[in-house]
């Protein structure tokens, strides 16, 4: 599914990621943890095309995408959510989802005025909003939603894309504890529905360890350790590095 080989990323002359190699199998959900500033988001940026590696290669579904732009990678199936919810705040919740549907379905523009299209789109949106519990906000501007609801909207939109690899950046950041269960359920449903793979960055280790198959620890831009959640959680070195 995804294979990173010796990836180096620099901002100007400052190295951020050093020699990162990792792989992800179809249907696998992998967590990335590490202290602030360790390069986790830069890693997602490198995979999704928002940061260009200075060395190394990125293979996605056996194709070299190292030099592809962000939108090309998204078209190829790499979906992405952002640290501060990446939604269109001046648009309604419904419109935020329609943009994702239209990208996947690629109907001719005149189809958008047909009843069949409107009905079909409404069904998809209603189903998607029902899953994340945002049905009542369908016509609201996304900008008025709470932090947790924005996260759910972003995940719902991610679910509507045809991405086979989803990169999720800190889904619980700024989210009330009560909503974390809904987020976890939504992320699981993203995985199960289309046999996707997910790479997820998260600081809430309890939330993450219950969700993922494998954890990769990044410290100062390098892969520090890798393993099953239970093994990683018990590692003394990790506790020193991660909790100080």
């Amino acid at each position, binding site marked *: 599914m995804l294979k990173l080989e010796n990836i180096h990323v620099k901002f100007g002359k400052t190295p951020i990621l050093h020699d990162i190699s990792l792989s992800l199998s179809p249907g696998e959900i992998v967590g990335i943890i590490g202290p602030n500033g360790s390069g986790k988001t830069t890693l997602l940026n490198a995979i999704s095309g*928002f940061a260009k590696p200075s060395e190394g290669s990125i293979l996605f579904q056996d194709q070299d995408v190292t030099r592809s732009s962000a*939108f090309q990678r998204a*078209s190829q199936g790499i979906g992405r959510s*952002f640290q*501060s919810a*990446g939604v269109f705040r*001046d648009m309604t919740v419904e*419109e935020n989802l329609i*943009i994702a549907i239209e990208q996947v379905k690629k109907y001719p523009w005149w189809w958008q*005025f047909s009843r069949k299209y409107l009905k079909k789109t409404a069904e998809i949106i209603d189903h998607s909003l029902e899953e994340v519990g945002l049905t009542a906000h369908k016509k609201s501007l996304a900008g008025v939603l709470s932090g947790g609801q924005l996260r759910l909207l972003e995940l719902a939109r991610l679910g509507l894309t045809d991405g086979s690899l989803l990169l999720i950046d800190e889904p619980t950041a700024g989210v009330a504890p009560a909503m974390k269960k809904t987020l976890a359920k939504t992320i699981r449903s993203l995985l199960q529905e289309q046999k996707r793979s997910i790479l997820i960055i998260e600081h809430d280790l309890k939330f993450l360890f219950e969700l993922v198959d494998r954890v990769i620890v990044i410290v100062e831009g390098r892969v520090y350790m890798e393993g099953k959640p239970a093994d990683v959680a018990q590692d003394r070195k990790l506790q020193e590095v991660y909790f100080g």
Partner: protein
Amino acid sequence: MGYFLTVIAGFCSDALAGVGLHGVFSLAGIFFLGIPVVMKISVYALAIAQRAGVPPEIAFIFAIIAAIAVGIIFAYLFVKVSPDSFAVLGLASLLACESLLQSWDSVTNGILGISGIRRPELFSSLPSLVIIYVLAVAVFFLLEWIFLQTRYGRLVRAYKQNEIVLQALGHSSSRIGQLLIIAASFVYGVVGILMAWRIQFVDPSIAGIPYLIEIVTIGVLALNPRVSSLAAATFFVAVFPEVLRFFNLPTAIMGYARVLLYSIFLMVIIGKLLPKLSISNRST
């Protein structure tokens, strides 16, 4: 009667220009300030072609091609420079274009300009030209309304709010911006040609900075993605300076007074209204 026709023609001209700016500036947030350059080039293409004996209808096609060609150059530059530099580039190109038109005597007739631009037979009189103007406004407003309902309209609005998320959804934000610039250039080609046919004269000062200020005022006022807000903004800006006629100002300063009024108005809008009108967030 002549006065009202002139006001209606002015309103329609501003409305068409507003359509061009609405997509690229109000909806997408691209500071494409090179629009007067597109107009200048298209009106001169029309005038030079007509002076060479080309019929007005064929000259129209030349002028549109010239406008789109200039739009393509701007679209190319759009992806090569930062958004701020692109705005400065637009203004600088306006001054450069004006200087070129003034100094290239053999082709443009310098500061004297080119007079005697003929209208097509179909609308050779002012009333018939005004009808064409009204029809053009109706067609362009309808096209914009359709555009806003389609996925492309949504993408343009999304572009202004969050380019990065748009890319993450598989859309090339550069391409969206480039297409908007070319589409706006086409509209400005039409605006320029109709303007040249209306006043039947072009000189290097046509579509200068005062005109840009007027059009940008419409663009800033019509920030909402609705045709109705564009129409209201255009009406306000086109009719607003007409109050000056009630102040018995010397004719010589009327033009300057209008520009001054627009400039003050623009400052008030930007300072007071703009923060309330937009909740855009380009960051992720």
